[in-house]
């Protein structure tokens, strides 16, 4: 990959556009996946930087997140404005702006363009979806539009690579000839007041910024700018606002009204629309897809297919990855001498890498589905259909699919929250997604239901218990979301206004780029952390490997051929390890849950991934780590007694088995999820918070289950 080089010489442009305009596609096609993610402290948005060379001119592009208006009301939105205006200390001012607009919906798309026109920077207008506009009978005279605006206007079809050379030529031409856009017209009183504010801003000012300060209703930008530029602005702004109000000007609506009026006058001669409204393809399809009955039917059909694919298609792939990992492990075991290095590579590193790669099939399948749904326009309909239900717990319809995906696995589920624009909604969804019962909990449920809740009960009983276990997540997650949204994530978010885009055929290159990006970013960022966690857990289970009496466990295990003796030694070793000692010391803590130290250790050791608990239980119950037969483990668990003492009562009964299952239903014993939360929120606070709240919840619920259970069962 070419590094993004020669920053001083390259021409810098910022790419702006509404959502659903094909902005990301244009960015990907222009930069050819040659991009990286900018790191800006304190914000959750991803801002990508890319570059390309055209006719030996180096061009650098900054991809500003899709927005309908450059009106900042949150730190994320403020960053976009700062980057466009060159107010961010980490980036230089762009040399020009590239605005992409959907030709089939030109008026509303030009709203953002009119804001770009006031930044004092040269602007190029790229028009996408011209084919859709033509199909609906809309004809646009590009030359006239370009002439009236005085700036280059280029029709493009990014995924078909049409119009790209023209666009690149226009960008390159800007370096020598700066063509400035016109200024949208405001009334003379507004212009006068805006000039007053502009004079206070000094060299950081632009008409756009001065206008924003004048028009904004909440004073967010003014406060931020006063702090960042150490200027006094608010008194002058208030004075201007009072002045305009006494002149009878409505400051809430003046900006939108003036811009739309200006746009209308500009566009009218350049565009011809069909006289009689034809019922378009989208109208016809929407009559079915948003229909009360058929729409819901179709929605559940799609969700069911996606889900089946996640479970059925991913399963063999995950098994192959597991087998591949075992093969590599065996190969290493044959090549390397027994010892710490081999154990580190096989039990630590290989498990770690395998534990990362094993998520890839699910991520690829889920993102394949989501990208197709998103690109064809259905995703917005799904959010539309589910919004009412999700609104009850303080979220929006956009949270539904990420939460549902988490039933397969919270890792892709958390990644899928990227579609949620509202920051608080997105965070709430991320925080509760791990409560949904994921597929990694299934082995735990199956083992314990099989051991303690099957024999002596009706044939229907195990199924009901399994259903209830899944029900715990379905009930707790919305409740937790409701709680978070009314406490720590309280606040009036942006209103849920969502464009329902025109249906179109999904583009392969768009889908591929999204799947590729999700997979690579997961492997690169969360992957390294997951692997590191696995190695860490290996270490605390490996060290110290010599007992206080001087017994060297690995050597003794290697020396004996007797399987039973090996297993006994392994158990003693793990008991003596750092993690084992901690596990034993926490027995008083887990006792109210009906657990002894062995279950405590197994639970602690399953921190990297829940499914590990089955393997760890095999070790601590003396079966050795390669217990092939789950039936054997099941029998041992049924017969296990407290502290392995035959005089003690049975360790597991129905209440303690239930308590363990409830714990695993609610806990966040999943290093991968925590690392993905770290990746997506950009701070360690939220994964720590998730772990603590879920573990506390799991502990309390498990204790309640056990304590109530022994009263009745």
């Amino acid at each position, binding site marked *: 990959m070419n590094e993004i080089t020669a920053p001083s010489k390259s021409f810098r442009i910022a790419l702006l556009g509404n959502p659903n305009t094909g902005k990301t596609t244009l960015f990907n096609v222009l930069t050819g996946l040659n991009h990286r993610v900018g790191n800006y402290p304190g914000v959750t948005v991803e801002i990508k930087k890319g570059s390309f060379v055209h006719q030996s001119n180096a061009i650098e592009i900054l991809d500003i997140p899709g927005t309908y208006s450059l009106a900042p009301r949150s730190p994320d939105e403020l960053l976009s404005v700062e980057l466009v205006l060159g107010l961010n200390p980490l980036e230089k001012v762009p040399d020009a702006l590239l605005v992409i607009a959907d030709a089939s919906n030109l008026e509303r798309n030009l709203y953002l363009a009119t804001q770009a026109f006031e930044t004092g920077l040269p602007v190029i207008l790229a028009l996408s979806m011209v084919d859709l506009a033509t199909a609906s009978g809309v004809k646009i005279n590009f030359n006239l539009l370009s002439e009236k605006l005085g700036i280059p206007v280029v029709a493009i079809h990014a995924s078909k690579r049409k119009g790209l050379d023209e666009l690149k030529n226009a960008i390159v031409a800007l370096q020598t000839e700066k063509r400035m856009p016109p200024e949208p017209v405001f009334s003379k009183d507004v212009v006068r007041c805006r000039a007053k504010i502009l004079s206070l801003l000094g060299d950081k000012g632009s008409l756009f910024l001065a206008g924003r300060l004048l028009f904004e209703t909440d004073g967010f930008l003014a406060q931020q700018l006063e702090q960042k530029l150490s200027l006094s602005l608010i008194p002058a702004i208030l004075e201007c606002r009072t002045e305009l109000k006494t002149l009878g000007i409505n400051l809430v609506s003046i900006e939108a*009204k003036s811009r739309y009026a200006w746009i209308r006058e500009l566009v009218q001669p350049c565009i011809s629309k069909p006289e009689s409204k034809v019922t378009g393809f989208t109208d016809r399809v929407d009559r079915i897809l948003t229909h009360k009955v058929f729409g819901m039917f179709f929605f559940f059909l799609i969700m069911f297919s996606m889900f089946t694919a996640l479970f059925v298609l991913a399963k063999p792939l995950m098994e192959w990855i597991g087998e591949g990992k075992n093969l590599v492990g065996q190969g290493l075991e044959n090549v390397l001498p027994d010892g710490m290095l081999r154990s580190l590579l096989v039990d630590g590193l290989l498990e770690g890498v395998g534990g990362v790669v094993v998520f890839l099939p699910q991520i690829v399948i889920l993102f394949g589905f989501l990208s197709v749904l998103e690109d064809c326009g259905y995703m917005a309909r799904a959010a539309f259909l589910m919004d009412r239900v999700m609104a009850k717990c303080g979220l929006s319809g956009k949270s539904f699919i990420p939460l549902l995906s988490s039933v397969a696995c919270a890792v892709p589920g958390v990644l899928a929250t990227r579609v949620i624009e509202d920051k608080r909604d997105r965070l709430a969804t991320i925080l509760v997604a791990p409560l949904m019962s994921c597929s990694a909990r299934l082995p735990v449920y199956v083992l314990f239901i099989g051991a303690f809740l099957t024999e002596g009960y009706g044939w229907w009983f195990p199924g009901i218990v399994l259903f209830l276990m899944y029900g715990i997540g379905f009930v707790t997650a919305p409740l937790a979301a409701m709680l978070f949204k009314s406490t720590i994530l309280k606040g009036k978010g942006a209103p849920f206004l969502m464009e329902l885009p025109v249906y179109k055929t999904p583009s392969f290159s768009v889908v591929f780029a999204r799947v590729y990006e999700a997979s690579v970013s997961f492997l690169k960022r969360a992957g390294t952390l997951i692997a590191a966690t696995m190695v860490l857990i290996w270490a605390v289970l490996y060290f110290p490997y010599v007992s206080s009496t001087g017994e060297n466990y690995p050597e003794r295990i290697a020396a004996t051929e007797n399987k039973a003796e090996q297993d006994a030694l392994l158990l003693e070793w793990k008991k003596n390890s750092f993690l084992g000692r901690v596990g034993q010391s926490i027995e008083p803590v887990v006792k109210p849950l009906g657990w002894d130290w062995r279950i405590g250790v197994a639970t602690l050791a399953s921190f990297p991934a829940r499914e590990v608990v089955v393997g760890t239980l095999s070790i601590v119950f003396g079966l050795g780590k390669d217990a092939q037969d789950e039936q054997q483990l099941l029998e041992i668990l049924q017969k296990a007694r407290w502290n392995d003492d035959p005089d003690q009562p049975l360790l597991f009964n129905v209440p303690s088995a239930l308590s363990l299952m409830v714990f695993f239903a609610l806990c966040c014993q999943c290093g991968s999820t925590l690392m993905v939360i770290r990746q997506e929120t950009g701070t360690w606070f939220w994964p720590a918070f998730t772990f603590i709240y879920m573990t506390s919840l799991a502990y309390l619920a498990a204790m309640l289950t056990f304590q109530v259970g022994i009263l009745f069962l």
Partner: protein
Amino acid sequence: MPTLDQVAIGCKGIISSIIGEDATAQRLMEMGVIEGEPFELIASAPMGDPLEIKVQGYRLSIRKSEAALVLVQVS
């Protein structure tokens, strides 16, 4: 004068004004929901909320709580 959440599905008309002076009102206007603009109420989601309207030539999903801020004149 009715608000947008009170009119029947299939209604067409003109937006008269937006109630409120906060960021929500401004967001609505940025999205093209401004006075004098024609609109059409296309559909509602299965549980009656949100609504799907056509404005400025595109489809917008809007919750009833926000639709209640939009005064309309049905034609």
